[in-house]
């Protein structure tokens, strides 16, 4: 896209050398970039560099920081609690990304190519969770998982009278937070895939039919490759959100019970702002950033392959 203006013809035809280019004098592009660049440098790039710097120190946020080299990073590798944070992230990726994408694909495969009346109404409703604050989501789902809440009511319909407070349980709290994420992302994935499948050339399906392809083959060799771009978008959105997840954990469990639902995003917050372990929080932040960049590039490679 940027190549558009890079054509030499643009400036020669205007006949005036530099002054004749649309951009005018050479500093003009920088003037347009200045406000954005200044803000990003001041509030994203500089603080990120500071995070890296702080990650090599022990600092309580008040007294001067003490340089301790890579000790914070060594601690991430050695401390089972810190390592478990990334394990919890993996569980959340399963709930936030894998389940919604798998279900979305399954539904798309079933519905592929059929015209469904009222699709836009379904889409509007399925996408609502994306428009709501996580605080509202948390309030709604805390009630689902409460001991007198909706889930236990549902279970009692099947004859299981339980009064479990799901978010207070060591085994169930993490899947419960995960399920809330599934709920939020499933509509997104369905809407993405159902829109994407409509862009696939109908003749491909007709050809598959003529060749006597089974439903599985049709899905595997027509629908799935046709949805590659949408799957990449869904993966990027859901996996990054799962890795960054702070909101739901903070709002629903505060990482508890114990540290059973804590994730890097929450631990950074807790260490930096509640427990005065700013250096350790920063090292977690750097690690998480690297992890996200790595994952994003992996997904991008999958997309462009």
């Amino acid at each position, binding site marked *: *896209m*940027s190549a*558009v*203006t890079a054509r030499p013809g*643009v400036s020669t035809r205007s006949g005036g050398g530099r002054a004749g280019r*649309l*951009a005018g004098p*050479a500093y003009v*592009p920088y003037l*347009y*970039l200045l*406000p954005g660049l200044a*803000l990003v*440098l001041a509030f*994203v*790039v500089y*603080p*990120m560099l500071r995070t890296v710097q*702080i990650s090599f120190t022990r600092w309580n946020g008040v007294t001067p920081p003490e340089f301790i080299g890579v000790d914070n990073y060594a601690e991430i590798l050695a401390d089972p609690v810190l390592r478990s944070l990334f394990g919890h992230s993996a569980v959340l990726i399963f709930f936030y990304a894998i389940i919604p994408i798998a279900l979305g694909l399954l*539904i798309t495969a*079933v519905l592929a190519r059929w*015209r*469904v009346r009222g699709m836009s109404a379904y889409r*509007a*409703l*399925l*996408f609502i*969770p994306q428009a*709501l*604050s*996580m*605080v509202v989501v948390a*309030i*709604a789902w*805390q*009630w689902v998982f409460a001991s007198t809440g*909706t889930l*236990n009511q549902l279970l009692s319909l099947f004859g299981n009278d339980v009064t479990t407070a799901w978010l207070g349980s060591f085994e169930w709290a993490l899947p419960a937070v995960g399920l809330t994420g599934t*709920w939020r992302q499933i*509509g*997104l994935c369905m809407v*993405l895939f159902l*829109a*994407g499948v*409509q862009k696939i050339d109908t003749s491909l399906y007709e050809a598959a039919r003529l060749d006597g392809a089974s439903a599985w083959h049709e899905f595997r060799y027509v629908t799935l490759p046709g949805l590659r*771009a949408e799957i*990449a*978008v869904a993966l*990027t959105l859901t996996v*990054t*959100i799962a890795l960054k997840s702070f909101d739901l954990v*903070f709002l629903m469990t505060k990482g508890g019970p114990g540290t059973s639902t804590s994730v890097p995003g929450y631990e*950074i*917050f807790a260490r*930096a702002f509640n427990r005065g372990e700013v250096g350790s929080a920063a090292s977690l*932040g750097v690690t*998480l*950033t690297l992890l996200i960049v790595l994952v*994003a590039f992996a997904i*991008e490679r999958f997309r462009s392959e």
Partner: protein
Amino acid sequence: MATVILHDEGGASPRRGGGPGARRSKRSTAGREGGGRRAPLSAKVIAHVILGLFTLFTIMPLISIFLISVYPENQLVSGLALPERVDFANYSRAWGIANFSVLMRNSVVVALFVVPIATFISILGAYAFATMRFRGKAAIFLLFLLGLLLPYEAPIVPLYYDLNALGLTGSPFTLIVPEIALFLSFGIFWMRAAFGEDTRTLIEAARIDGASSWTTLWRVLVPSVKPAIVTLLVLFFMWSWNEFLLALVLAGSPGLQTAPAGIGLFLGERVSDLRGLAAAAIIMSIPPLVVYAFMQRSFIQGVTSGGVKG
């Protein structure tokens, strides 16, 4: 991720949805209805059962919160059940929870600053990236890409301590300015993609007419990408209204917090008034839901473009 937007075959590009694209997709659906396969009755039933179940799963928790918000004082809340009678007293009480009316006002103020300013600056930056040639373009672009990727949990730590050390906390701008910076990366990528497609002839025509770059931008380019700008405004509003981490950390005093941050902190304490809390949740959802109701297509298109806010 940003790169998704840069490729045309991806989920959606700014040009594709909103206005003209929306019409196009409607047409193509209509076309399929004529030429495509008509579903047999059984397939129709299966389709509606599946979609219906997932839709139910999606709206159930929200319905239960709404029902709780109109429960009368003397009825015990349990699971999902209809209230004996509808009582809106919870709503008047909700305004008192965690200073909720102040929180709502702050949310409005933040959105009023963040949305137009972030959009304006995004348009300026994207204009340079999409139509101009300059030294360091690739490197600067990479900086914005970084802003799109990194989890804000990391830079917010030193940001908080540094702003504190500089004595800059305690003003609404401690939240507003970083929030604008956080949204910019996406805005610039989004607008760059919008400007990038078939604008060359427009620009050349404007230049032949002797228009300056500033005039070309506002008189020629911006009107031609209105749908993309509308989508950006909608996304920025939703993100700003629902932003949680930044508001929680940077707003400083309770008097400056936004609704999500204030109610979110309140959630951490012991919740004794579930009905009032549910009512507050409904109230704070009204602005985004109204925007969603009217701008649904833009919003869906923007979110599914694959751009991730920091």
